[in-house]
């Protein structure tokens, strides 16, 4: 399906390139869009990522969330006592998340 998507969509670009006009080239035409102004500076500048801690949290909690699926999909076959360690895991996850959210709220340390 992925391959078919590529195979079906690449011709659209080729056809578009074939039938579209390509005339009157000038340097202004190929400038990056900045609302009619002449662009100042580089396009890829330093950009303040104010919410960087959330990306860090994602790296950890994405993996932890997927771990829960290994437990959830086998839950019907497991004895009830096997849920206790998972409760502990969830408690650690919850505590860690609360701490991370508290730290991410302290904007001045970032």
């Amino acid at each position, binding site marked *: *399906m*992925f*391959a*078919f*998507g*590529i195979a*079906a*969509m*690449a011709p*659209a*670009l080729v*056809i*578009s*390139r*074939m*039938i*579209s*006009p*390509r005339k009157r080239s000038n*340097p202004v*035409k*190929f*400038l*990056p*869009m*900045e*609302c009619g102004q002449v*662009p100042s500076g*580089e*396009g*890829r*500048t330093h*950009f303040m*990522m104010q*919410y960087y801690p*959330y*990306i860090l*949290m*994602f790296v950890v*909690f*994405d993996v932890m*969330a*997927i771990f*829960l*699926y290994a437990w*959830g*999909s*086998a*839950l*019907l*076959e497991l004895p*009830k006592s096997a*849920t206790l360690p998972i409760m502990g895991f*969830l408690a650690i996850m*919850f505590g860690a*998340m609360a701490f991370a*959210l508290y730290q*991410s709220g302290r904007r001045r340390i970032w």
Partner: protein
Amino acid sequence: MSVIAPNFKLSGFIKSLLDNIFWILLIFVLAGLPAVFMILLLIDLPIIDGELLTPFLALSYLVNPTRLIPVIHAFLTTDIFRVIAFPGFGFAALLAASVIFVERKMMAKLQLRVGPFYCGKVEGILQLMGDGLKLISKEIIIPAKADKPIFWAAPVLFVATAAAFVALIPVAPGWVVADIDLGLLAFFAVIGFFPIITILSAWSANSKYPFIGGIRALFQMVSFEIPLILSLLGVVMLTGTLNLSEITESQSNFPWIVFLPIGAIVFFITMLAELERIPFDLPEAESEIVAGWLTELSGMLYGLVQLGSYLKLYAFAALFVVLFLGGWNGPMIVPAFPEQIITEGIEMGPITLTLDGLESLLSNTITQEMLNGTLWFVLKTAGVIFFIILPRGVFPRVRVDILLDLGWSKLIGLCFINIFIALGLLYSGVLGPGGLQ
């Protein structure tokens, strides 16, 4: 009314058309036909009804509809048909196109406008086709310092990833392109590609607005992925499987939204965020940062991104239906096929056309259950899509910090409540083995 481009010459246009036709014919004769014969020599042709399918036999099928039916039947069961037409790309693209039209008309009605009206006489029904032709005939302008290969590839990859997502959706019993045991994990894997493609496209444009939009898209998609993953855990716990077809079959008596409404609501909200729909359309906020990460895309590149995003919308709505609303399950409302057509044939004027293979076709492939399941699936998906596009006329856009706070604090808390509800239902004996199911 605008005039056609002042330098337009009809003779020049016809000349370019003829040029293209000439080159296509020349390339087809010199390279296409030999390639077709080489392929016919190399591949094993299928045996249909005890006969080897040679090209001559295939041509004779064309004039005799009775002999054509086994060929159609054999084609309907191939993977190629599934990928191209029914549960795959064609079906999804058709639904996506109708969603674009319905959305434009509905937004117009909500904002007391008329919307598309002139193209195609009846309520502007051909507007979409006109837009497609406009986009495909526009010049593609790429910024001078852009990273050209990535800039060209990103929209194509976007559509292809959305198509890979569509492949996981079971539409009717047995009608799914990729029926894999870890379907839900495959869905999470596919979802993980969208922020990467977005940030690639934004970075390669070498412009400021796409870059800001790409960063916002990265934040938004990445932080809503955790509530998205956790909100579906309840369904997995109650069904004990990750296969989407089996999850649908488990809802033959009642949909999971009855027992897990919190999970459904959280999944719906994260769905809006992943789709960049309006309360969360920060990555392409057109009143703040021109068009977000779509700013530098022009012509067909923009058209491809639009197609991909609407395919993604269909796939998300379909996934909501499969996980929470019972997928293809529903009362049987499609009438049974008339016995006479199956056994005797179709009467057309003076002759009775007897179609021999029709019985096996109608009882194995296009069954009553399949038509009924598809009908229910499409109805439910249309309902979910309606609720996805409705906020666009109602809500304002939220701020980035409110969005992230919502995703990380509130939705994840609700997800944990949902998990404990599922666990309680399971251990109190309401659901699961010995319970209602």
